[in-house]
């Protein structure tokens, strides 16, 4: 993993962990469902934005098919998340993890924007592997255990399976581009 990706992954996991706080063993975690919903939604938006950039920049059919899949899947899960928070009467709440995610992703997008051709394709695919790994760690270690609402927890669990599958697909893409 290169330095920016590593920093991004670390910031994601630590920012998510810090929300849970030192009193994680206490009955009520300090991260609430409104914050969790915001983080999950933000994670989806980031990958959709990356996919849109890939569709603008890449001419590789495999990369484009992967990007279309990312855009389609994350839109589906985010639509579901929006419907759920509306049903629950919860307003997603901005927080340190969402902000960390967004700023790291913006930096990554600027870096990718400077690349083109196969260099871009390879960097995009490698970033997708790293990004999905980082989000999977946050989901399984922090967000899913902390979620209180059963429907939100279930959606996050489906999201984790989705991200794991995307991670594997991204790994296949990296191999196919070598």
């Amino acid at each position: 993993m290169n330095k920016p990706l590593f920093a991004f992954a670390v910031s994601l996991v630590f920012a998510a962990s810090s929300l849970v706080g030192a009193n994680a063993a206490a009955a009520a975690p300090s991260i609430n469902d409104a914050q969790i919903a915001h983080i999950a939604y933000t994670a989806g938006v980031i990958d959709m934005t990356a996919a849109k950039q890939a569709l603008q920049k890449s001419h590789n059919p495999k990369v484009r098919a992967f990007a279309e899949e990312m855009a389609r899947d994350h839109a589906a899960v985010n639509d579901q998340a929006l419907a759920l928070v509306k049903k629950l009467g919860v307003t997603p709440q901005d927080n340190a993890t969402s902000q960390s995610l967004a700023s790291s992703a913006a930096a990554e997008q600027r870096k990718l924007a400077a690349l083109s051709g196969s260099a871009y394709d390879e960097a995009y695919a490698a970033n997708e592997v790293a990004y999905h790994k980082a989000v999977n760690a946050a989901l399984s270690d922090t967000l899913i255990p902390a979620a209180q609402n059963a429907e939100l927890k279930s959606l996050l669990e489906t999201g984790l399976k989705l991200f794991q599958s995307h991670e594997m697909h991204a790994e296949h893409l990296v191999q196919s581009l070598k």
Partner: protein
Amino acid sequence: MFRIVIMLAGLLLTTTWALPASAIGANQAQVTHVVVIDKMAFGSMPAGVRAGDIVEWVNRDIFEHSATARDGSFDVGLKSGATVRMTAKRGTFAFFCKFHPTMQATLVVK
């Protein structure tokens, strides 16, 4: 000689009657097996699927999926909410979702 002719005639008659009867029997025995896809997973695979049966793929997930045989025997596209039927052919088919490679299962058709 007469006995042989009678036996042959009997055999012919039996065969003539047996063919349509077995064909009708096969149609009547055709079974529909439902495979439900939900929450990023193929549901339990049906047992006792026979060649000529119908396999009905029901995608209850919020994502688009596929049921794609690794040997190329079938490639069923499944948009969210879609139900697609296919006629089963004999064999053991490892298949996966071409969009989500962690989704894998095996269909056995006898």
